[in-house]
């Protein structure tokens, strides 16, 4: 293959060619440059920051909830405010923070880890971000105009239907879901194609880093899960509310339970959409800090795939009290217990790697250890509530609240913080403070346990969820107060994290290319990486490319420095197949996103929006895809003379 010669100076870029490559890939400056950007790093960074802002907003809402419940008969919030706030908290954390931030981190890391210059479909990437931003802003503007959704993040009909969900509140929720669905689906498509077709030569399937596997599986979950909620909310619920269809109205032959099936067919895999990338961070970070290769890489990959499959067979365990037939429910108990096995495999491999390696206790590893402890706890309560009889007691009580926060905060936010500490140097070129990081970790760990552990007991003591207040005679006061104190500790920890970020951006230690001794390709380039990621696409000859690389290993040569070229490789063995020229930055994704925004926002008020919207989208889409005549886009190696 002509492109993967041994590293000979003659094949490498000379300074003039490097200069040309800089110019080819350098993003345009200024506001215009920001609006038209299609570089995966620039899109992913704003995605991460936006999602983190939503995390802070969701956190403030959580804190308000805890303040309201700190004592019985509290009057801080009235029931209307409380219902809006807990709906906003759930919606924000699931739709605007949980899924987007995992996909955003993947959009940043995946091209670097697989050794390519950008994600596949960079303009689609921009479209996804803008749509997400519009959805998030729309939700929050509505909330501040007192039109925030108030039927819960699950929006059960008929409470969310036309008869009982008055005004436009639930419509806002339904369309926000639409926007985030579009964003998640675009990201999933980009990640799948990037992973399958743009890997560096030599990165055959068995050499794909475990984190990349985790987001690949996650992206498939997005593809199969998201359409279900899109159908339920964007199509059926919105139509029930807008044009009087009766999908969910029992009086006209509709069925309220249909909503629950469709929602949870999405809702349960969604948990794994947030959780699987988190296990990817953990499996990627542990070898670096244990200074040893992962035990059982293949088992970990198979666990991810197995979890992905089984996650689609769990949704009915959210519906154990709806009166479904018992035999049917048993299958879902079986599946819910079964999913503990791949999770167990992962935990055992992590512990074994730490045992067989030489762990050094930097902040990322601390968050990973905290994660394992919290995840084991949340996993065990998960096994408990997989039991139909026990769940009939625990369902819709604070026991579930405790369980879900152990798995969401413990098994998703903790690894995410580990990832922040681990990859922050790559994104910014600066290290976060270790000292503040350790405080950050311990406060968070203590805070989470103080907040959520007592809630198990509140649930068994009969405290139901989504209540804005409770009577003093219930005896729930002291544990609720304790829980609120814990929320304060978490808040302090998050503030400390923000301080750490601000301080480190200004005065953090310079990171260099590879501050941790990492093993994946992103540590093979500058921090932050140049717009083209790698001057020469590396050639991979192992699962731990940077640890296993022999000196003088070959790199890819012969790609034009003056064009935005990416290398396309084969799915199985990552054999080079062709060179594909990526499109230039463009403003049309933003325009299309605005047209989508107009369509769905006005679609709340009139069905005509769905005729006008596509008309608005037509011209921008034509301009987006307008082909460049001058040169062939693709050049196949097969057509090349040898």
């Amino acid at each position, binding site marked *: 293959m002509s492109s993967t010669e041994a590293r000979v100076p003659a094949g490498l870029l000379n300074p003039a060619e490097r200069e040309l490559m800089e110019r080819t890939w350098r993003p345009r400056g200024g506001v215009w440059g920001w609006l038209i950007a299609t570089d995966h790093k620039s899109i992913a960074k704003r995605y991460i920051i936006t999602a983190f802002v939503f995390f802070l907003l969701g956190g403030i809402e959580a804190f308000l909830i805890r303040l309201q419940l700190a004592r019985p008969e509290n009057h801080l919030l009235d*029931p*209307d405010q409380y*219902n809006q706030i807990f709906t906003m908290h759930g919606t924000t954390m699931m739709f605007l923070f949980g899924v987007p931030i995992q996909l955003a981190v993947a959009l940043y890391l995946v091209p670097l880890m697989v050794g390519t210059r950008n994600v596949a479909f960079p303009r689609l990437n921009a479209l996804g971000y803008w749509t997400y931003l519009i959805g998030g802003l729309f939700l929050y503007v509505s909330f501040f105009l007192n039109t925030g959704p108030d039927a819960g993040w699950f929006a*059960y009909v*008929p*409470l969310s239907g036309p*008869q*009982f969900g008055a005004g436009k509140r639930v419509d806002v929720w339904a369309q926000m879901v639409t926007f985030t669905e579009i964003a998640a689906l675009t990201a999933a498509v980009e990640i799948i194609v990037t992973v399958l077709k743009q890997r560096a030569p030599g990165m055959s399937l068995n050499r794909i880093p475990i984190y990349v596997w985790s987001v690949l599986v996650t992206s498939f979950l997005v593809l199969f899960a998201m359409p279900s909620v899109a159908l339920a909310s964007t199509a059926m619920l919105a139509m029930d509310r807008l044009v009087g269809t009766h999908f969910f109205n*029992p*009086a006209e032959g509709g069925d*309220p*339970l249909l909503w629950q099936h469709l929602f949870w067919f999405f809702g349960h895999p969604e948990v794994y959409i947030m959780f699987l990338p988190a296990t990817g961070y953990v499996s990627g970070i542990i070898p670096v800090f244990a200074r*040893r290769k992962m*035990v059982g890489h293949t088992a970990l990959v198979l666990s991810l795939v197995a979890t992905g499959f089984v996650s689609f067979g769990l949704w009915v365990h959210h519906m154990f*009290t709806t*009166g479904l037939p*018992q035999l049917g*429910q*048993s299958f879902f*108990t079986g599946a819910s*217990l079964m999913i*503990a*096995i791949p999770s167990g*495999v992962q935990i055992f491999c992590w*512990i074994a790697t*730490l*045992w*067989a*390696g*030489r*762990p050094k*206790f930097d902040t990322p590893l601390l968050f990973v*250890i905290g994660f394992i*402890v919290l995840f*084991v*706890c949340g996993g*065990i309560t998960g096994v*408990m509530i997989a*039991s*139909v*009889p*026990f769940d*009939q*007691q*625990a*369902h*819709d*009580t604070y026991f579930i609240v405790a369980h879900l926060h152990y798995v969401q905060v413990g098994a998703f936010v903790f690894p995410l913080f580990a990832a922040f500490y681990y990859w922050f140097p790559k994104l910014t070129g600066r290290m976060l403070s270790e000292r503040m990081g350790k405080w950050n970790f311990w406060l968070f760990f203590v805070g989470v346990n103080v907040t959520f552990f007592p809630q198990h*007991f509140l649930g*068994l*003591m*009969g405290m*139901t*969820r989504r209540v804005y*207040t*409770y009577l003093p*005679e*219930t*005896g*729930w006061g002291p544990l609720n107060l304790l829980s609120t104190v814990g929320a304060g500790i978490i808040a302090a920890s998050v503030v400390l994290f923000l301080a750490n970020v601000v301080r480190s951006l200004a005065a953090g230690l310079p990171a260099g290319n590879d501050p941790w001794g990492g093993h994946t390709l992103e540590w093979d380039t500058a921090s932050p990486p140049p717009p083209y990621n790698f001057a020469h696409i590396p050639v991979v000859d192992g699962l731990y490319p940077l640890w296993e690389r022999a000196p003088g290993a070959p790199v890819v040569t012969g790609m034009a420095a003056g064009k935005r070229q990416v290398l396309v490789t084969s799915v199985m063995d990552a054999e080079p197949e062709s060179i594909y020229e990526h499109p230039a930055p463009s403003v049309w994704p933003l325009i299309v996103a605005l047209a989508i925004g107009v369509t769905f926002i006005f679609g709340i008020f009139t069905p005509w929006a769905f005729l006008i919207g596509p008309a608005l989208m037509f011209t921008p889409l034509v301009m987006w895809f307008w082909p460049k005549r001058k040169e062939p886009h693709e050049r196949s190696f097969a057509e090349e003379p040898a």
Partner: protein
Amino acid sequence: MRRPSALLAALLPALALAACGHRDLSAVDPAGPQAARIADLTWYLTIVGSAVFVVTVAFLLYALWRGHRRVENYSGEAAERHIHRWIYGAIGVTTLILLVTLIYNFTTGRALANFAEPDALTIRVTGHQWWWQVQYVDPVPSNRFETANEIHVPVGRRVRIEVQAADVIHSFWVPNLHGKVDLIPGYTNTTYFRADRAGVYHGRCAEFCGYQHARMDFLVIADPPAQFAAWYRNQLRSAPPPADSVQQVGQQVFLSTRCAMCHAVRGTDAGSHVGPDLTHLASRGTLAAGTLPNLRGSLGGWVLDPQSIKPGAYMPPNPLKPDELHALLSYLESLK
């Protein structure tokens, strides 16, 4: 606590705490066989789960301690084989625990389902935003009656609860007696339980149902059979006629103002079923679905201004003159 072993109390003092909340709402303090089965399962799950947690975290801490002391990685082919053996073992133990748990789950679920009995006392409960309509169903029409927010059951007899929803989804939950069952528009779900000791058990709506989901409680009162029979006979009767002139004025207030537009008092012209049946209001323990104790003062406050007590409830404010209110309260208090 029904299952007090010393070991358990030492292991799980906090779960014991859950068993003694001030109000009778605990899921691990069963008063009947259905809740007792689930409580047994709960203890099993808690103990096994805690043990798994402790063992796993102990392994984790040991691994960190051991790894931290290593000078050199434990690796190589023999090492991997050794490690894999441990992992296989751990997976085997996990799978075994899960299988046992699965079987225990199924047998418990079966036992709960097999509690059904055709000639159980049947009570139909309909959920409304935000109160409970309770109808005692009997083949003989003259043995049927309706009440609200308070269910009396005889100790020692199986009870069949048929649940329906009038508006949105609610969920019927009496933790001391059984797990919950949802009330879903268009469906009728059933659940069976039996109370084995007399007492007052609190119930709540467990499915989010709008503004006042938090204040949608009810009571299940388990009476000894004779006492239950007396209560039943009394409930079958129409409301007693006003006993004095004040009550007579009160009845007139009831029938001539908004009250009668939503509420029924059997034996009078008031026959609406929009709100709770008030025929024997004074015999009930609470007002507004467990929001207030049924006392004259709170009843007066509730009648005048329900919105400040339970914002969003469908009962409008009733600006009555003081003497009208006084008479109305006297009349309502006579509805024993």
